[in-house]
C-alpha cells in the first residue's frame, strides 16, 4: 500500500442552473489575458450537445486518453513515444481554433463614437486572433439551453447508439447542464503525453499543473487530454490548464468556481488512494468495470491500518483527519452516488458527478404524477430508457445499472424527507429498496441539501512550513562564519561555539560575562555534573 492524497471535486448536477457564474469568475481569475480568449478552465455545457471544443468526447476522432493494446497493456491512444516524437512538427490530433470557435469581441468604439444619425450604429464582431471582422459560426457555450439542438445536438458522441430513438423535439427532449473543469486524473494522459516533462502531478495533493518555464509548446498535452482541458496559449506558445486554484487550495480555500457557485453544487475534499493500484485499475479490461476499479483504488480513511500507512507515507495528520470528513469521499465511496465522467478514457478522473434526477422527475411531473412519489419516479426511471442510457454513456461507459441505482437513491431521499416533513409514515422498506439505511438517507440529505460552506469544502491547508525552512536555508542572508570573531572575520571561531556542544571542559566554558559585567552561567550544553554558579541572582540582604 502506498497512500497518497488527492484533492477532488464532486458536482451535484441536479442543482446546476446553468448560470455560468463559475465560468465567468474562473475566466476573470485565470484566463482574461491575450492568447487565452478562447480558454475556459471551467465551462458549462448543455447536454445533449457536442461540447467545447466540438465533439471532444469522440476519442475515435481525437485519440485522447488511454487505451489497451492487444496484450492488454495500457498505452496512449494517440500512440507511443517514438510516434509522438516523429509527429512533433504536426500533431494530427490537435483541434484547430475553429473547433473552439474563433474568439471574438465587438467593435464597441464605433457605437460610442457614432455621430447622431438616422440609423443605429452596430458593433461588428472582431476576431481576437486577427483584429479583423469575422462572422460567428461557433464558440464557447454556443449551444446553451439546447440552442440549435435540432440541427446539431445529434452529433453529441454520447448519443451514439441512441440516434434512432432520440428526438430533438420540444415535448420529448431532456436536458441538463454539465459544468466541467480539469479532472486532475490519477493517471493523467496529458502528463504522459508531454514530451518536455513540463507537466506534472503534485505529490502532496495530486493537482496537475504545467510548468510554464519548461513547456516548449509541443502541444501533445492538448491532444492527449480526452476532456480537452489543456489549452494552448497562442500568444505565449505555451500550454495552460485549470490549476484547481492551487493558491487558494493551499490556503484551505475552495476553488473560485466552487466559491462562487450559485447553486452550491460543488463539493471539495480529499481522497486517500493507493498509488500502487492506479495502473492496475486503469488497465481493467472491460471499460464498464472501470468505475468499480477506480473505487477500489480509494482508501477508507476510517480504517486504522490506512491511517497508519498514510502517516508513514508522510501525509500530515490534519490531512488524514480532513480525509475522514471529506464530503467527496462520502458521496463517491460511502454513499456511491457520485460517478466519474467518462471512466472509459482510463485516466481515472477525480472530478465526479452526481447524475441529475431532474430529467426523470420532469417526465414524471409532465405525466401528471407527483415527482416526489418514489414509486412513481422509480417506475419512470425504469421506463425512461433514453436519458438513462445517455447518462450511462457519460458516467459509466454505458452501464445503466449504476445510473439506475443512483437515481433511485436520490428519489428515495426526496420521498423519505417529504414523508418526514408531512408526518406521513414512509414505506418502511424504502431505504432498503435503494440499498441504504435510514441513517444513510438522512446523512445524504444533509450533505446534498443543507451542507454549509465548511461541510461542502473540507480543504486542509498545505504544509508549507518545510518548504519555508528549506527556503530560509537556501537564501541565508549572511555567512554563518562571518559572526564577530568568526573564521570569516579573521578569528578562530565564533565565541562560545563550544558552549553549544557540551564542551570538553564542563563548567569553564559555560561561564561568561553578560552586558552588565556579571559572571553568568550558560545552561545550554551543561552536562549536569559540577556546579552551576551564577545561575540565580545573589541573595540580597533582607
Amino acid at each position, binding site marked *: 500500500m502506498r497512500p497518497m492524497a488527492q484533492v477532488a471535486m464532486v458536482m451535484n448536477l441536479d442543482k446546476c442552473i446553468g448560470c455560468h457564474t463559475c465560468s465567468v469568475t474562473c475566466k476573470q481569475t485565470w484566463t482574461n489575458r491575450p492568447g487565452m480568449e478562447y480558454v475556459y478552465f471551467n465551462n458549462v455545457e448543455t447536454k445533449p450537445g457536442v461540447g467545447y471544443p466540438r465533439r471532444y468526447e469522440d476519442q475515435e476522432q481525437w485519440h485522447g486518453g488511454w487505451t489497451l493494446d492487444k496484450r492488454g497493456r495500457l498505452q496512449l491512444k494517440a500512440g507511443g513515444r517514438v510516434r509522438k516524437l516523429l509527429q512533433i512538427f504536426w*500533431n494530427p490530433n490537435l483541434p484547430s481554433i475553429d473547433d473552439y470557435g474563433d474568439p471574438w469581441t465587438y467593435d464597441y468604439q464605433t457605437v460610442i463614437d457614432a455621430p447622431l444619425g438616422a440609423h443605429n450604429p452596430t458593433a461588428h464582431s472582431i476576431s481576437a*486572433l486577427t483584429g479583423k471582422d469575422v462572422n460567428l459560426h461557433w464558440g464557447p457555450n454556443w449551444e446553451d439551453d439546447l440552442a440549435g439542438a435540432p440541427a446539431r445536438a445529434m452529433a453529441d458522441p454520447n448519443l451514439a447508439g441512441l440516434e434512432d430513438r432520440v428526438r430533438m423535439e420540444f415535448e420529448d427532449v431532456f436536458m441538463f447542464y454539465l459544468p466541467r473543469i480539469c479532472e486532475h486524473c490519477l493517471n493523467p494522459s496529458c502528463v504522459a503525453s508531454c514530451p518536455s516533462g513540463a507537466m*506534472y502531478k*503534485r505529490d*502532496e495533493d495530486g493537482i496537475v499543473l504545467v510548468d510554464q*518555464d519548461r513547456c516548449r*509548446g509541443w502541444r501533445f498535452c492538448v491532444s492527449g487530454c480526452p476532456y480537452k482541458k489543456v489549452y494552448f496559449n*497562442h500568444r505565449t506558445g505555451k500550454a495552460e490548464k485549470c490549476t484547481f486554484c492551487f493558491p487558494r487550495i493551499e490556503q484551505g480555500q475552495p476553488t473560485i468556481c466552487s466559491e462562487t457557485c450559485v447553486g452550491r453544487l460543488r463539493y471539495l475534499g480529499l481522497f486517500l488512494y493507493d498509488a500502487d493500484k492506479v495502473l492496475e485499475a486503469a488497465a481493467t479490461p472491460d471499460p464498464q468495470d472501470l468505475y468499480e476499479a477506480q473505487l477500489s483504488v480509494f482508501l477508507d480513511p476510517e480504517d486504522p491500518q490506512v491511517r497508519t500507512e498514510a502517516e508513514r507515507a508522510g501525509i500530515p495528520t490534519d490531512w488524514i483527519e480532513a480525509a475522514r470528513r471529506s464530503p467527496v469521499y462520502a458521496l463517491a465511496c460511502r454513499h456511491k452516488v457520485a460517478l466519474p465522467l467518462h471512466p472509459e478514457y482510463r485516466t481515472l478522473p477525480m472530478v465526479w458527478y452526481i447524475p441529475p434526477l431532474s430529467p426523470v422527475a420532469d417526465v414524471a411531473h409532465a405525466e401528471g404524477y407527483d415527482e416526489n412519489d418514489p414509486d412513481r419516479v422509480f417506475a419512470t426511471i425504469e421506463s425512461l430508457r433514453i436519458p438513462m442510457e445517455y447518462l450511462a454513456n457519460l458516467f459509466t461507459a454505458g452501464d445503466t445499472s449504476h445510473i439506475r441505482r443512483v437515481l433511485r437513491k436520490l428519489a428515495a431521499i426526496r420521498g423519505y424527507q417529504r414523508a418526514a416533513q408531512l408526518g406521513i409514515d414512509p414505506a418502511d422498506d424504502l431505504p432498503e429498496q435503494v440499498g441504504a439505511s435510514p441513517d444513510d438517507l438522512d446523512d445524504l440529505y444533509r450533505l446534498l441539501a443543507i451542507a454549509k460552506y465548511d461541510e461542502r469544502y473540507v480543504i486542509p491547508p498545505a504544509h508549507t512550513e518545510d518548504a519555508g525552512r528549506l527556503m530560509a536555508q537556501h537564501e541565508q542572508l549572511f555567512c554563518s562564519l562571518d559572526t564577530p570573531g568568526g573564521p570569516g572575520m579573521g578569528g578562530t571561531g565564533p565565541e562560545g561555539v563550544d558552549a553549544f556542544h557540551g564542551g570538553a571542559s564542563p563548567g569553564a566554558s559555560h561561564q561568561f560575562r553578560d552586558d552588565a559585567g556579571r559572571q553568568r552561567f550558560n545552561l545550554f550544553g551543561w552536562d549536569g555534573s559540577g556546579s552551576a554558579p551564577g545561575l540565580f541572582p545573589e541573595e540580597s540582604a533582607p
Partner: protein
Amino acid sequence: MSSTWAYFWWVILPYVAMAVFIVGHIWRWRYDQYGWTSYSTQLQERRRLKWGAPLFHYGTFAAIGGHVLGILVPKSWIDAIGIDEHVYHLFSATAGLIAAALVIVGMGILATRRLFVPRVKATTSPVDWVAMVLLGIMVILGIVVTAINAPLGHEYRDTISIWFRSLFTGSADVSVALQAPLYFQIHAVAAWLLFLLWPFTRLVHAWSYPLWYLWRPYVVYRSRKATPPPEPGTGGRKWRKIGTPY
C-alpha cells in the same frame, strides 16, 4: 580581398558569433525560459502546416547531417573507410539536392502561410520576421551552393572544412578558406549571422527536441520544495496588462 578584411570575415566574425551564441544561450536560459518555446501556430492553421512543417524540419535534419559529414568529419577518415572522393561527391550532391528540395518546399509553404494567413501573420513578432528572412537567405544560399557545386565538384573538404575545424584549435587557418570559391565563402560567412541571432529568436527551440521523453516515466510527480525567490527584473515573465492591444 585585403588581408585585414579576410581577418575580419574569417577570424573575428566567427569568434564573435561563437561568443554571442554561447553567452546568448546562457543568458536566455537563465532569464527567459518562459519565452523558450516553438511558438507553434498549428492551433490557428493546420492544413498547410501539415506539409510545411514536417518537410522543412526533416529536410533541415538531412541538411544538418550533410554539414556534419562534410565539415566536421575529416576527409582522411572517410577516405580511410574506403569511400573515395568521387563516390563521396556523388552521394553528397544527390543527398544534398534532395535535402535542399525538401527544405525549400517546406520553407516555401511555411513562409506563404506566415505571410498570407492572417491568423498566423498576427502572431508573428518582429524578431520572427528577422529570423525568417535570415533563415530564408541561408537556405537559398545553401541551395545555390549545392546546385552550383554539384557539377563543378569543388572539394570543400580541403578548404572550408579545414578552416572551420581550425577555428576550434585556436589558430584559424584563413588561407585555406580563401582558396574556396566565392559562393562557398558567402554561404559560410552568412551562416555566422544566423548563429549570432540564434539565441535571441525562437530558433532556440531546436535545443529542446525532447529525446528524453523516450526513457522518461509516463507520469511525472513533483513535490513541493524550496525555490529561490524571483530576482527583481530577471524573472523573464511577460504577463501583459489586461486590455493591452496587440
